[in-house]
């Protein structure tokens, strides 16, 4: 990211205070860059006005793909490429194909979706995280406000944040 980015961090240790704080801050027209928490806080996405994720659609798509792959593979292998008489059954008989089809559907759906998730939220091994505060992964919630995105003065923003009874208010520069 570009150099000397300045953030104002409001630090909270209670998710409910955090939620009300987010509301207050946004009402007073301050754009919140992002909020960081040690555990999922319910309702935070509405508070921040995030759109619902489209991961379920990805999952469904990958599932369909797996299903099709499985069926074509089985039908082609046992019906077209090398048909063999096995137990007097038809070369292509769907009942025996159900289990494999099901498993491959689930497999591709799961793997595909998780891969998508990793990519969109840029999670990968050896990635250096950009931590606003070391305590995020312990017990503190952090509201990060990017000064560049707000026309309000730094001190005004700090004031607004303070009214939301944040435990601490810090500056963070990258």
């Amino acid at each position, binding site marked *: 990211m570009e150099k000397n980015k300045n953030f104002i961090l409001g630090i909270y240790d209670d998710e409910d205070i955090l939620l009300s704080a987010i509301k207050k801050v946004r009402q007073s027209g301050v754009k919140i860059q992002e909020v960081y928490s040690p555990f999922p806080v319910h309702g935070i996405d509405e508070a921040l006005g995030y759109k619902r994720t489209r991961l379920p659609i990805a999952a469904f798509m990958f599932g369909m793909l797996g299903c099709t792959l499985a069926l074509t593979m089985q039908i082609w292998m046992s019906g077209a490429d090398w048909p*063999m008489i096995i*137990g*007097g059954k038809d070369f292509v008989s769907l009942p025996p194909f159900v289990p494999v089809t099901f498993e491959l559907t689930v497999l591709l759906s799961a793997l595909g979706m998780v891969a998508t998730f990793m990519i969109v939220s840029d999670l990968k091994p050896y990635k250096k995280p950009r931590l606003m505060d070391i305590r995020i992964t312990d017990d503190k919630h952090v509201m990060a406000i990017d000064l560049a995105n707000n026309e309000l003065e730094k001190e005004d923003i700090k004031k607004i944040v303070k009214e939301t009874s944040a435990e601490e208010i810090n500056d963070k520069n990258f």
Partner: protein
Amino acid sequence: MSDKRKQYWKGVEQLTNDPAFVKNAESEFPEFLPISDNPEGGSSRRDFLKMMGFGIAAASLAACEAPIKKAIPYVNKPIDVDPGIPNYYASTYVQGGDYSSIVVRTREGRPIKIDGNALSPLTKGCSNAQVEAAVLSLYDNERLRNPKKSGQDISWVDLDREVTSKLNKIASAGREIRIVSNTVLSPSTQKVLEVFQDRYPTTKHVVYDTASVEGMRLANERSFGQKILPTYDFSKADVIVGFGADFLGTWIAPIQYANQYTQTRKITDTKKGMSRHYQFEGNLSLTGANADYRTPVKPSDEAKAVVALYQALDGKKSDIPHVNKAASDLKKAAGKSLVVSGSNDPNLQVVVNAINNKLGNYGNTIDLTTPVNYRQGNEKEYNEFLTEVKSGKIGAVIFFNCNPVYNTQSGADLAKALETVSLTVSTSDRPDETTKFVEYVAPDNHFLESWGDANPAQGHYSLSQPTITNIFDTRQAQASFMAWAGVIQFDYFEYLKSEWESTLAGIGLIWDQALHDGVFAIPENLEAPIFNADVNAAISSINTAYKGSDLELSIYQKVGIGDGTQSNNPWLQEMPDPITKATWDNYVTVSQAWANQKGITFIEGKSNMVNLTVNGIALKAPVVIQPGQAPGSIGLSVGYGRTSAGKVADGRGVNAYPLISKINGMESYAVISGVSVEVLEETYQVAQTQTQQTYMGRETVIQETILSEYQKNPGAGRYHPHISTWQEESGDTHPGALTLWKGHKYKNHHWGLAIDLNTCIGCSACHVACQAENNIPVVGREEVINRRDMHWLRIDRYYSSAPDDELDDDQKDMMDSRKLELVAANPEVTFQPMMCQHCNNAPCETVCPVAATTHSSEGLNQMTYNRCVGTRYCANNCPYKVRRFNWFKYHDNSKFENVNIAMNSDLGKMVLNPDVTVRSRGVMEKCSMCVQRIQDGKLKAKKANRPLKDGDIEVACASSCPTEGMVFGDMNDPNSKISKLLKINDTEEADYIVTKEIGEPRAYHVLEEIGVKPNVTYLTKIRNKDKA
């Protein structure tokens, strides 16, 4: 300069500008390249690609191949040996007095399979387990590789010189010389021995048999004035009564008798009757197992039963079960009946003769005009010889292919006495108990390496020819005798040929024809004598002789091991005894009653050892509780307890020969006094391939009926499972017919096998034939105990369950399913050959994850060994449990070299059938329905450019069956034997339905209700009894 350049011609053609040359002058290869398909010759790009493709393919294929060891190409190819093409030679199997005319199949000059010779009027193409297995003994590592002098190697020259000089010394000293042998069927050999006798006048030829029937010959002398064995014809008999004669298994000429016997048992639409067979015996023999009425009697009562039957014919009632019934049946079938006894007591046999005479069987079922030569032993002469040896009168003894130290009652004495004899020679081709005590061993060829002939019966001649050159430095025994008689450079073949031509050419012998056929028969009959014998004297002596005691012993021969000559043959050792299903051992068979009273149990083959003492000789042997064993009698087989036969046989079981007793001065396998048994604490497990005795009343497995029922309704005894479905509530739906699948039609062939349970006598010839044909490993006693025998074809032997009146009180309270496990005291026996059923809806195929077992387009369930990963799922899911898994590496594995000799030495491996893979460790295997033979037959037909005929292809088991109880063929061919037998009509027009409609009412599929649709069909067993 350039114009001055030298011209080099490509040849004179260039100089003369030969047009043909000029045309190709520029191309790289002026000659036409053979690998080109472009008409102008030369090589196109496509040729190049083809060649390159081939090159790469060849290279990569070569990379896959394991390197072939010791493959030596022919420098000059022998005329009649084509690699990959088998040659067949007619020959003769002679073992002691046992005889069978055979056809030997050789590949690249190696005999690999013995089959019966269909051209023989005596054995009619039949064989038995021992004959089938004989080929393996050719490749036995234990065979002597060169002549020996007191254990040390010696050259033939030296041996001949020393033996001859000693013989001369002895002869000139006027001391006795003896040639000891079993029955010699070969006329030419007799001649050779005569030559020897002329050279050394003090020579005498002493003949003994391991199982003497001289008593019969003496009886015939007393009855007819001729000391002969008659020809029996069971096929003409409507009523057969046997007294302890195991004529289907081991008695005199079982191969012929079995074939004749089953002709009377076979039932067809045209022949709806069958013979009735009574058997009175102590042990449950193979013959007794096939009898309609079997009476267990201890040996002494067996004799009384003979007398009782004789008297019953005159109306005197007897209290021995079935005697009166037998008598009345015999009377009804006078002239069309046959009574035989296995006893060696002349008196008994005289009475038997009297019975047969009274019934007018002579000239009908018994033919005195063409006597057989199978047993010529002379006990009197042999006993004299024994006393002479002991007294030191004998100067020289030559043991001609016999082993009396082991297989005579007095072997031990003989061994001791031999030390005093100055010259002792044996011609045995392998070390045995006798060669241990002789000075010189002049090893004979194996019969598959030898010329020879046989005169099994009056007017019947038989030739044997070498099928392989001598493997070791051995010499035909006849040549040895001639050499010692001073005839050097003797060629037995020439001698034999001239003998035959001098004697038989006059009466229509064509040598080449005879050699090709292997047999030559001319009608030369003696005149029929008249019966005249003092029966009452015989009877009275019987009454005095057979006092009987509370425990009597019947010694017997096993169907597999016989008299023990071939006991170093692992195929026979591991062949389950048809009755006890035990392998690798002999054992004392006792009755359940006796066991109960001694408190012995017999579970999974485990039981106590016993000390068996007979007239002072004690043996320690394991026990087998044998249903049908006569109360007060026990059984023990000979042929075991070898001490120097080789690593396979040595130390297995106990030697029963010393127990042989005498009755009326004749050798007797029945010991009627002085028998005592003491139960020991020590336990022992007999290795059985089948431990559950009854078929649990499961009609879907065994379907049987009685003759009268069958005559009323040919479908009698058939079991028809039926259910009702949601479409069809009437309850007539055949569960096996319900299916989800359309199935697959077999367009060309549809192989099938039909097995007639009524003619299967359980002789196990098919069992060994299968083992020989398909390279089936032998696993040894321990692995059989672990229930891991590898046999592709097994013969299930089932006893009938105990009827309620035989149960004691606490057994009566048992659950029904438990009651069914109890065996009847005198059970009915059923034999069921069981191999892969080649199901059209094979459960094994469905479950294999890697498709290693699939169905062929000809109805075969085929096993792809190199695709198999060995999950054993197929074996678990096989309802017939016919699949066999390679638990270990059985070939080239030191753990198995002592039992699986056919796969653990270069010599042993010569017996392997090159058409069949030797399976590796960890793969599944099973009956392939001899697919190699099927392919071979198809190829032959294709080469001859004709459609396949029925009979072109014969599977190993069917071809070995002495009773023609197995029929193999193409069920798509309406004219094939099997289609006719099963009355198959292929109703379905649709091109996918496989189901064949089987018209024969007796035909059934085992477990047909589970709907696997087998291609192996069984015909119901029918017993000729009054009531089931």
